[in-house]
C-alpha cells in the first residue's frame, strides 16, 4: 500500500499539492521545488499536460519524484489516450511502483497549444476508474488475463462551485461506485460554498481533499471570480490594497485553511509555480 493510501485510510489530515511538468526535458526547477516539499506534504500531483498544453510525460516525472523519495499522484486524463494506451500506462505506473492515480477527463485540446489535435475521450473518467479496478482483478477490458496484477489508489476530481450542486454530488457518487477512493476539488474561496458542499458529501464514502488556491494578484482573483469561483469581496479588497499581493494571497490561503481544516479530510494546495510558498502557508495555518 502506498504511503498516501495509508494516510487516506488513517484519520489523519491529508495535505497534497501539485507540480507542473515542464515543456522540455530539463527538470532542474521542478526537482528543486519538489525537494522543499519533501516531508511536508502527503502527496504531489503531477499534472498531465494541463490546460491541454503539451508537456513532458507525467508518468516519467512521477517515477523520478518517487526515486527522490516523494509520494507522487499520477494524473491521467482521457484526452490523449484510447483504452489501449490508458490501460498500458496504468500497468506501467504500477510496475514503477506508482499506485496513486488521479483520473480526470482533461481540458479539451481546442483550449490548449495544439488546438488541431484529435481529441480522444475513448473512455470517460467513470469508465476509466472502472477499468483500473478491472485491471486489479487481473483482467483487462477485453477480458484477457494479466500476468502480474497492478494495485491502485484511485482518485477523481470534483467542483464544489458547480451548479446545480446536486448534479455534481450524483457525479461524485457515481465515481465512488466506479472505484474512486478520494477526491481533490477545484479551489474553494468562499465558506458558504464550502459548507453547502460539505453537508452534501457526508455520506459519500470517500475522502475529499479541498482545493486551496494561492491568489498571486488582484487580477488573478478577478479572473477566478469571472469564471464562477466566487471570491469574497473582502479578499478582493485585501489584494487591491496591499503592496505585496503574493504575501496577501498567502495570508488568504492561511485564513481559508484555518477556517476549514477542522471540518474536512484535507487540503490540496494549488500554488501555480509558487510551490516554494507552500511550507510557510502550512506552518502559518498550523499544519507545518
Amino acid at each position, binding site marked *: 500500500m502506498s504511503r498516501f493510501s495509508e494516510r487516506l485510510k488513517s484519520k489523519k489530515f491529508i495535505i497534497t499539492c501539485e507540480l507542473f511538468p515542464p515543456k522540455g526535458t530539463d527538470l532542474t526547477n521542478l526537482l528543486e521545488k519538489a525537494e522543499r516539499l519533501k516531508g511536508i506534504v502527503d502527496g504531489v500531483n503531477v499534472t498531465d499536460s494541463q490546460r491541454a498544453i503539451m508537456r513532458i510525460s507525467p508518468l516519467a516525472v512521477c517515477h523520478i519524484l518517487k526515486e527522490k523519495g516523494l509520494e507522487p499522484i499520477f494524473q491521467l486524463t482521457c*484526452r490523449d489516450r484510447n483504452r489501449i494506451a490508458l490501460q498500458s500506462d496504468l500497468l506501467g505506473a504500477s510496475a514503477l511502483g506508482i499506485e496513486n492515480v488521479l483520473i480526470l*477527463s482533461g481540458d479539451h485540446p481546442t483550449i490548449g497549444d495544439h488546438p488541431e489535435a484529435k481529441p480522444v*475521450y475513448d473512455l*470517460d473518467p467513470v469508465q476509466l476508474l472502472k477499468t483500473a479496478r478491472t485491471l486489479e482483478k487481473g483482467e483487462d477490458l477485453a477480458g484477457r488475463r494479466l500476468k502480474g496484477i497492478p494495485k491502485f489508489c484511485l482518485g477523481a476530481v470534483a467542483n464544489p462551485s458547480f451548479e446545480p450542486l446536486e*448534479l*455534481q454530488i450524483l457525479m461524485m457518487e*457515481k465515481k465512488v461506485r466506479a472505484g474512486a477512493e478520494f477526491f481533490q476539488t477545484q479551489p474553494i474561496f468562499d465558506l458558504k460554498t464550502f459548507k453547502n458542499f460539505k453537508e452534501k458529501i457526508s455520506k459519500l464514502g470517500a475522502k475529499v481533499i479541498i482545493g486551496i488556491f494561492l491568489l498571486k494578484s488582484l487580477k488573478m482573483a478577478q479572473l477566478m471570480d469571472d469564471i464562477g469561483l466566487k471570491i469574497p469581496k473582502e479578499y478582493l479588497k485585501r489584494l487591491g490594497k496591499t503592496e505585496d499581493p503574493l504575501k496577501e494571497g498567502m495570508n488568504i490561503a492561511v485564513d481559508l485553511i484555518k477556517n476549514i481544516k477542522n471540518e474536512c479530510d484535507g487540503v490540496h494546495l494549488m500554488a501555480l509555480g509558487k510551490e516554494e510558498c507552500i511550507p510557510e502557508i502550512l506552518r502559518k495555518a498550523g499544519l507545518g
Partner: protein
Amino acid sequence: MIISEQKPRKEILEMLTDRKRIFIVGCAACATKCQTGGEDEVKEMKRELEKEGKKITGTIVLDTPCDERIVKKDLSSLPALKNSDSLLIMACGVGLQTIGNLIDRLLVPALNPLFAGTTERIGRYYEYCSLCGDCLLDEFGGICPLTRCAKGLLNGPCGGARDGKCEVNDEVDCIWALIYEKTKEPLKTYYESRDYKKILQPGKRVVR
C-alpha cells in the same frame, strides 16, 4: 440532414484552374435546404464561372446525388457530359463519390459538408448525431451526449461548465445541463464504454 457550406469562391476557382468546360451538378435534397447546392445556387455559380471565362456545358440538380440509381437514370447518359472536362459537384462528399462511381471525369467539390444536424434557420445549424450505429436516445432524455458533449462523455459532465455553457465554447450549452433538466436517471446509471468498431472505420462501411 447533411449540413454543408460552400467553399470559398477562390478555392473553387483554384481547383478549376486548367479546366475549361465544366458541368455543374446540384442536389435537390440537403444542399437545397442549406441553400448551398440548389437550383438558385447552381445558377449563381454558372453566372460567376462564366464571368471568369469558363464554358459551362450544362447544369442539373439531381433529386439525390447520393443514390446510384438516380445518378444512373438522370445524369450518366446526358450528352453534355461528353463535352465536359470536369464536373463541379454542389452536393456533399457522398454525392460526389456516388457520381464518381459512375462517371469518369474529374470531379471538383464545391461544398464543405459539415455534419448531420438540425436547422434553426439558414446559417444556424447544430450537430445532433454522429451516426454511431447504436442509438442510445431511449436514454439521456432523448439528447445525444456522444455528439453534443464536446468530450462525448456518457457518464455525466466534466467539471468545466459555466452558467450552463460548455467549457470548450461558451456559445454552446453544456449538453449535460440540458440532459439533467430532462432526467436525472443517467447520473445514476453506469454506461459502458462504446463499441467503436461499430462507429468508426472499418465498422459501418457496408450494410447488407
